[in-house]
């Protein structure tokens, strides 16, 4: 995405006169549709999924190490959100460690084999950790519908749902704020915290479900219920960068097989 205009001061200090901020049509379209890396979501998705095929060929630690190194080199430059990537990676590392430990303990105590098992997981997880934070739901929807010609209604529903996942974090914060103000917040001992988290989760679930109902009504009120076909406000171009990233993905799928 093109950088938001003067990013630091964008929100509160944006000029408020109505004439200043009517954007030119072109800017509006491009602003809604470029990813920071300039790579479209389908190529990114491909680069996330293709290496899974290569993971099957990782039978020794050195293959895995070279593979993971190659992934970092090939895809690292596309990552834009280090914090998000690290969070996802943490889950991957946790999974890899537990696989390694159990392979070591129950699989005959072969160090190389358990390292390979761990690296196989990392080989699958790393591309997604690097790239999924870069994929924007709206843009993915544009491309799925216009490039892959998937049916419009499920695509829109999925996009709205993906955006909802984002908003669940915010909802969690709001619910917790309200519970904290009412003396029902998360503090005290472990048991109380656990119980509090469960109630918060339940409240978030209820709010999310009710919101989903209202959102469905709001979407229908804007003609979604009746639309069998629709147009897309965002374009879905395929650029040379997309081909490059897709080739990198194919390369990562083949690499472990060739070693």
């Amino acid at each position, binding site marked *: *995405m*093109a950088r*938001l*205009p003067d990013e630091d*001061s*964008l*929100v*509160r*200090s944006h000029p*408020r006169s*109505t*004439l200043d*901020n009517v*954007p030119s049509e072109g800017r*509006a379209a491009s*602003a*809604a549709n470029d*990813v920071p890396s300039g790579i479209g979501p389908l190529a990114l998705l491909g680069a996330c999924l293709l290496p899974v095929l290569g993971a099957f060929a990782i039978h020794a630690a050195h293959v895995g190490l070279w593979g993971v190194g190659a992934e970092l080199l090939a895809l690292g430059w596309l990552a*834009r*959100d280090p914090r998000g990537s690290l969070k996802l990676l943490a889950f991957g590392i946790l999974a890899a460690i537990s696989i390694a430990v159990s392979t070591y303990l129950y699989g005959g105590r072969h160090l190389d084999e358990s390292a390979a098992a761990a690296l196989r997981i990392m080989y699958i997880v790393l591309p997604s950790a690097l790239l999924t*934070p*870069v*994929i*924007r*739901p*709206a843009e993915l929807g544009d491309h799925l519908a216009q490039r892959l010609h998937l049916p419009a209604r499920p695509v829109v529903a999925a996009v709205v749902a*993906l*955006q909802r996942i*984002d908003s669940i974090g915010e909802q969690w914060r*709001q*619910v917790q*704020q*309200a*519970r*904290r*103000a*009412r*003396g*029902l917040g998360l503090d*005290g001992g472990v048991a109380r915290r656990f119980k509090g988290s469960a109630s918060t989760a339940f409240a978030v679930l*209820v*709010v999310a479900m*009710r*919101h989903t109902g*209202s959102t469905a*009504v*709001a*979407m*229908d*009120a*804007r*003609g979604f*219920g*009746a*639309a069998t076909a*629709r*147009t*897309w*406000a965002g*374009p879905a171009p395929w650029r040379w960068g997309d081909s490059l990233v897709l080739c990198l993905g194919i390369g990562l799928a083949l690499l472990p097989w060739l070693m």
Partner: protein
Amino acid sequence: MLVDVSLTIPAGQRVLLAGPSGAGKSTLLRAMAGLLLTADHGELSGQVLVGGREVNETPGRVGLLLQDPLAGVVAETVGRDVAFGLENRLVPRDEIWRRVASVLAATGFPYPPDHPTAALSGGETQRLALAGSLVLSSEVLLLDEPTSMLDPASAQLVRDAVRRETARRGTTMVMVEHRLEPWLDFADRLVVIGRGGELVADGPPHEVLNREGASLAAQGVWVPGLPTPELTLVEPGLVEPGLVGFPTCQGISPGAAEAIMTADGIRVTRRASLTGSRGTQIVALDGVDAALRQTHALAVTGSSGAGKSTLIAVLAGLQKPTAGQVTSADHLAPSRRRGRERRPWKWRSLELGSRLAWVPQISESGVVASTVFDEVMATSRALGRDETQASRRADELLEALGLRHLRAASPYHLSGGEQRRLLLAAALVHGPQGLLLDEPTVGQDRATWAAVLGCIASAQSAGAAVALATHDLEAVTALAADRLRLEHGKAA
């Protein structure tokens, strides 16, 4: 809910729909849009015809703006959100962006199309939702309190936009509003729904008001030209701050009233992230000073997005300031091993709940229980207060706020205005020292408005310190509140 309501609305007519809080106005509006079947409970009979055909068979002819604007957000950016309806109508891309830009300009929306929707305030989201409805140029436009969360200037802007857009296209319009005055010369017809969900008045606005003004006012309709209603005060014992061991301020003259919470040079920034970008830093507050004083009310005003809700959250101990200090009076601060903890955002939940109370702007996320009565009792129970005494207070407060008959209902099934009153009751019942209220009068009719402010004023004169974010200037006057006007996060 609604009983045998029949209306025939000729094309191009502009109808104002009024009635007491909880009468079923929003339900009627949803029914007119043909959307009652999808997400509701209860039984439905009757039909809605548009141009002689069932409304469900003629999609796209009726546009609806919901009361809760947050639920209507369907996209990550402002532009894509407004474009949503146009996409469904098969409008070509170039035309989409042209129309998005023009409707954003027409509604005075202050941000460009690539602005994240997650970074909008409540009032801004409401304007976004309106833009999303107006852009479709539907034949019939149904609006549910389109200006309820807006300051007077933005509300005027929105009214002008609605007038202009509907007059230009001859749109048929039905609008739910509590405040009739600004729309009177624009509307052709006033329809009033009574407390039991029945039709009580119908006709040209001025005629209806002249003929039945007094009886409508008694039912809670904001009849224009009448003086602000007298506040319905409650017995002080019901709302008196009751923290054990804390000196109440009886006998203190208002001038000498003590500050229980002081905010100095508060700055709050936060990130609104768009998935896939690093996010935008938002400065919500910048160098703001404020104080909560016993027996005083502080009204935080300013346009939507100015930082009102954030300041209320800081004073409520729910938001840690990025810079600056928020500190409580020494005797209010809970003890720690190393002395007293005066920063409210460091307090434990029970400590906070016993000292301060907060009513959020979005009521739904504030609900913590499954019945109205349990909702009001939740904090008292968490604090281990005496059940009999607390439940007596709870029932009396529910009575005062017109919710007693809903005691066993689910808080989620209440109307917007009722939910807000419920959370006020839940905030008052255990006698907190400080009351932090975010838009407490939104969605209230004449009678419930008087009840809401009556409860607040009673708590205030019984010794509580009050701060409220509001754009309701009559409420500011009624509470004799000190004013703090925010503009772009700074005191103006």
